[in-house]
């Protein structure tokens, strides 16, 4: 069964396939970038490499959940991006009813500037 990185935001549970993730870390500081598109919080450093931090709740029109916020680094080809997830993370088998998030949809939302409301 597929295992996902699951987290709960204000309106529901969401998940990312572990294969789409390269790693998770505590949210350290990030530097805002003036003129950045909507959904881009700024830049951070991960293992000596700069990463673009995306506002996941903002991209999917959600509100933060409970728990310490974390950074979720996406896997290639989006390994230059990291998602800001303000919720507790856990690894579970794919829950029935959870909303699966695809990195491509999130990147498209950033590119188009429109909030991507994924289908449940």
């Amino acid at each position, binding site marked *: 069964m597929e295992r996902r990185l699951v987290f709960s935001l204000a309106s529901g549970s969401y998940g990312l396939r572990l294969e789409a993730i390269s790693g*998770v870390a505590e949210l350290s500081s990030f530097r805002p970038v003036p003129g950045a598109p909507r959904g881009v919080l700024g830049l951070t450093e991960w293992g000596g490499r700069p990463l673009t931090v995306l506002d996941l709740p903002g991209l999917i029109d959600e509100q933060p959940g409970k728990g310490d916020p974390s950074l979720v680094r996406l896997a290639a080809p989006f390994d230059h991006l990291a998602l800001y997830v303000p919720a507790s993370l856990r*690894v579970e088998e794919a829950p029935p009813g959870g909303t699966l998030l695809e990195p491509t949809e999130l990147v498209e939302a950033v590119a188009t500037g429109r909030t991507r409301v994924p289908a449940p």
Partner: protein
Amino acid sequence: MQKKLAAWFLTVAMLYTIVGVAVPRLQADPFWSTVLIVSSDVVIGLGAAWLVSHVLTRRLRDLAASATVISRGDLTRPVVQSEARDEAAELARSFATMVESLLNVVVEVRSTSSRIHESALALSATSEEMNAATEEIAAAAQAIALGAERQAEQVSETSAITRDLTRSVEDVASSAREVHGAAREATQRAAAGAEDARRAADGIGALADTIASAAAAVEGFRLKSEEIGKIVAFIRSLSQQTHLLAINAAIESARAGEEARGFGVVAEEVRRIADDVSGFAQQISSLSDEIHQGSNEVAAGIRRSVGAADAARDLVERASGSFEGILSSIRGTETRSAEISRLTETQRGAAEHVARSLEQISRIAEQNATGTEETSSATVEQTASMQEMAASVHALARTSDHLKELISLFKVG
């Protein structure tokens, strides 16, 4: 004179006897004897009478003539005197002496009359002056009487006012005594209050010290709670890091595929343990937060209590200071009220003395007014008397003039 008369009477008696003896012998007829006797007796008697009267009245006539001259006022005519030693001569000599004395008296009277007249005139002038002066005195006495009466009225009014003042002073003295008593009582209460304030300040100070000690202890608890919080936070951070590490392990396990499945299981167990640790750390953190919050609240409460105790101590100390100031003021007030009470008592005594003095003055003034009235009345009477005296003096002067006129009738040289 008696001897001569006696001799004449003896002679007449002898003649009567001789006739009475001789005629009957010479005339036998009784009728004619009687007629002869009677006729002889008559003749003898008349003759004797004429001789006696002639002898006696001659000097008396001289004296009468002198008296007539004297009656006309001429006292310069000498009185005919005789060297005889009978009563008539004696009478003439006495009459001459009398005339001489009368002359002297008239002269003296004239002189005295003149002096009296002059004195009467002077006395009249003096009496008129005295009358005028007496009238002035009467007017002045009347004015004095009126003034004395008004003075008596004013003194009476002043005495009444002084009596009212004395009563007011007595009331003030009574009030001063009451104030003094109240000040003394207030002093005692203020002293007791100051003592209570001092004890309260001491107690609050001790309470503040105790609270400060408790605050220090609570502060220690709060610091320890903060340390616990820091440790819990560290544990939570470790747990979070472990959790994330386990997730990363699961991610790597998923990448590694089936061969890394066991690693994924271990990672999952690690993650679960980390979650449990995180849960416990969260509980500890919650408890620590509650303790910290409670400690903060207690510390805040203690600080408020300390602040309140300090404020209360300050208030009590200020109150104690105020009490001391009040006590000092009340003691000063008590001293001043005692002084006021003493002074009012002195004033009351002085007012009473003044009242009694005024009453005495009032009585004296009334007596003076009465005496002045009497003096005025006496002066009026004196004036009347003076007027009467002036009238009498005028009458005396007129009498003296009349006397002079009368005396002037006498010719004295």
